[in-house]
């Protein structure tokens, strides 16, 4: 797909693709941790679709972001909630859009403050390119390179349906 395209595939279809990509490789007892906000929506859905037993966690990485010094804390922060023991756990970080990799870096750092996971993987709906850190997804439903200044945003309607939109940053 070209970067010039403004239409994205349906987010619900992508979610099914992501779940099917994860299903055969997902370990017994793996736990999902969604990154606020889009990642939490996805983790909730994936948790049900994949029939995982471990409860899904959610994290707000605001305390670990590397741009705190210039941007401060954002409004609308949430409490992180990891409802399982992180020591020895197999964790899959779930986020909607992978861009620079800085959010994932922050998420990994945060998880280590809860314990020492045995393994951490990364699942994303869309990889839009533009990495600034050596981070790659283990599961990804769509490669969709975008130029700098453009961004993909996941939205959730009142009935819980997910949709992707492209907009200017």
């Amino acid at each position, binding site marked *: 797909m070209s970067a010039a395209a403004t239409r994205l595939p349906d987010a619900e279809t992508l979610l099914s693709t992501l779940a099917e990509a994860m299903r055969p490789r997902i370990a017994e007892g793996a736990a999902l941790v969604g990154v606020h906000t889009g990642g939490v929506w996805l983790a909730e859905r994936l948790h049900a679709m994949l029939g995982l037993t471990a409860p899904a966690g959610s994290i707000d990485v605001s305390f670990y972001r590397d741009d*705190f010094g210039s941007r401060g*804390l954002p409004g*609308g*922060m949430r*409490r*992180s909630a990891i409802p399982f023991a992180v020591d020895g756990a197999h964790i899959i970080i779930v986020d909607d859009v992978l861009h620079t990799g800085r959010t994932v870096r922050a998420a990994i*750092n945060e998880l280590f403050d809860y314990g020492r996971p045995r393994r951490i993987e990364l699942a994303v709906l869309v990889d839009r390119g533009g990495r600034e850190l050596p981070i790659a997804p283990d599961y990804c439903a769509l490669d969709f390179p975008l130029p700098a200044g453009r961004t993909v945003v996941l939205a959730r309607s009142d009935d819980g349906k997910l949709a992707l939109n492209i907009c200017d940053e």
Partner: protein
Amino acid sequence: MNASRNPQLGRDGSLQHLLTIEGLPGEIIKRILDTAAPFTEVAEREVKKVPLLRGKSVFNLFFENSTRTRTTFEIAAKRLSADVINLNINTSSTAKGETLLDTVDNLSAMQADMFVVRHAASGAPYLIAQHLAATGRDHIHVVNAGDGRHAHPTQGLLDMYTIRHYKKSFADLTVAIVGDVLHSRVARSQIHALATLGVPEIRVIAPQTLLPTAMERLGVRVFHDMRAGLRGVDVVMMLRLQNERMEGALLPSTQEYFKYFGLTREKLELAKPDAIVLHPGPMNRGVEIDSAVADGPHAVILPQVTFGIAVRMAVMSMLAGG
């Protein structure tokens, strides 16, 4: 400093210093309370630290003793990964402004990023903030940890956090502040915060000798009869009887004070059944509060301490993050 501008706020309206709740916009107060909420979770982790203030130096500048307040600021700064330097500067009442600012200049030369100031003189943190602005050191932040009889903003904010935690909203509350209002910087901060957050009825219950004049101007209802004042309240905010601040005989005896203004179970029954009781500590048991109440089901005094750390983490990170 530009007198027309709130000295606590930067040019973009962000929090630059925390000096007093008076005049602080409601949005900023709410933002502090909202920011504090996720910080309460940090204490439940294996590593009770987040890296927000890594590499920053926070100086606890205590010109007046306060183990508890200093400790909670120290814990808050350490949980934000700051380096904390505690300075307990015992000064006589004749300490001059020059000495204070010399101290500030010296510590600034040691690359201080934040001063947490407790001082017996009202306005000391203002003086420091003003001095920093006048000397082009806007990147250094000041937090008032209690100045004279004037203000104790983080105590007021943690009280607001506690009330919101238990009562969810400020909109329909009746809140009574009980005790030594005259000597209390906490009471002033509480009244300003409650009014800004829209509490419809704020009561003050105190003997005439422990009330400042023109109390009603702050928009509060004054009661000298504790039983009448406690009737139907949702929140009881006890104040500590400030023995060390008493000049002259304002009270016949602490026993008599307890009889008329001490919070007992029997008096608390006049409040709403789900009323909560706050106290900023340290408590004088048997003087302003009975042990049965302090340790009873309505007391939220220990949660106040826990929330206080999260609120101070929120304030310091909002200052450092601009």
